């Protein structure tokens, strides 16, 4: 069965959705992500949905669900790169994902996660000491 790859980047997990999502695939993603969070102790999950141009109510709800589950496991989820059309559909469906962080793109999403987790100073410190 098709799976969505989950990449580990430092304290974060990066999920880039490149295929059309269907119900089974999202459920598998939720399973994989929760396992991965517990295995790696990741502090943040970044889901890039910029190549997704259609979302139905089930997938919208699952995105919210993934965020809620990972938060229980102490990992902050940020959804990035939502297309305008997808955002409109989600709002029309009444799925405005309360409690889920959002960002314009992967870069901003990473920044957001770092600042949320108080990792900014450490990073800055790293750069300072290296310089």
């Amino acid at each position, binding site marked *: 069965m098709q799976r969505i790859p989950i990449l580990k980047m430092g304290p974060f997990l990066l999920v880039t959705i490149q295929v059309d999502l269907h119900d089974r695939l999202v459920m598998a993603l939720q399973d994989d992500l929760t396992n991965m969070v517990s295995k790696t102790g990741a502090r943040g999950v970044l889901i890039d949905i910029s190549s997704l141009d259609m979302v139905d109510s089930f997938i919208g709800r699952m995105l919210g669900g993934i965020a809620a589950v990972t938060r229980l496991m102490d990992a902050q989820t940020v959804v990035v790169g939502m297309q305008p059309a*997808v955002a409109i559909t989600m709002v029309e469906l009444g799925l405005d994902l309360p409690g889920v962080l959002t960002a314009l793109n992967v870069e901003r999403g990473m920044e957001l996660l770092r600042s949320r987790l108080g990792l900014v100073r450490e990073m800055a410190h790293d750069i300072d000491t290296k310089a």
Partner: protein
Amino acid sequence: MATQITRLLMERKEKLLQIWMEGQVSELSLRLDRMTSQDLYRQSKEFVDAFVAAVASGNVEDLNRHEWEPVRRMLVQISVSRSHQGFSPTETANYIFSLKEVLIRLIQSELNNQIDVFVQEFIPLSRVLDKLGLITFDSYTRAREEIIIRQQQEMLELSTPVIRVWDGILALPLIGTLDSGRTQVIMENLLRGIQDTNSDVAILDISGVPTVDTLVAQHIMKTVSAARLMGAECIISGIRPEIAQTIVQLGVDLSMVKTRASLAGALRLAYEMRKLTVVPAGKG
């Protein structure tokens, strides 16, 4: 079947055109600023040529046949251009109806005593001219409607500009009554603007919105939610005292949304959110 009238038309084409032109020019004398008499002459000559050719084909019954195709096409073109030039519907339809009048007079003077020929042969021709008049009217109206629809769309676009105030900060001054059609355009424009300019702060200024009811408030909330889903934060500004009161009286909960009384306040907040400071010159 070369009837008497057909023959007459072919022989007297030049005269017909001449009388028709005289009639049109005297009628249109005020309108010649919209088109020159040379243009009118060229147009009318082409039309008379096509018309006489079509009548000469012998078919004066069915305008959908190919003999009439050039006439119909020409007429549609003329009506469309007249509607663009600002002629009134009557003036446009008169183009054909004045030809009919000229025809009657010409035929009458040539076929002096032959009333029965006149009746027999002119009635089908008259019917054709009436149908042509209807085609004129139809294409005129259609062209007008197209203009109106285009203008409506342009107004929608014009009335909802998305302005880049600073790197990563957009402003949308909303002006006029917000109905569901406009709010949809506003939402789409804003979201597209967010994506195109990579902005994460958007200011929705409602100073120019005369009234806010529950529906408008709901639309604004939807827009704010959609922008948030994309990763941008909205600030609503320009909330006048009356509007603030109405919002509270309506029981609309805007506590989740950042609001400011003025655009200046919203700008200040936006700069803060982007960690920017404005410093007076010389004090840097």
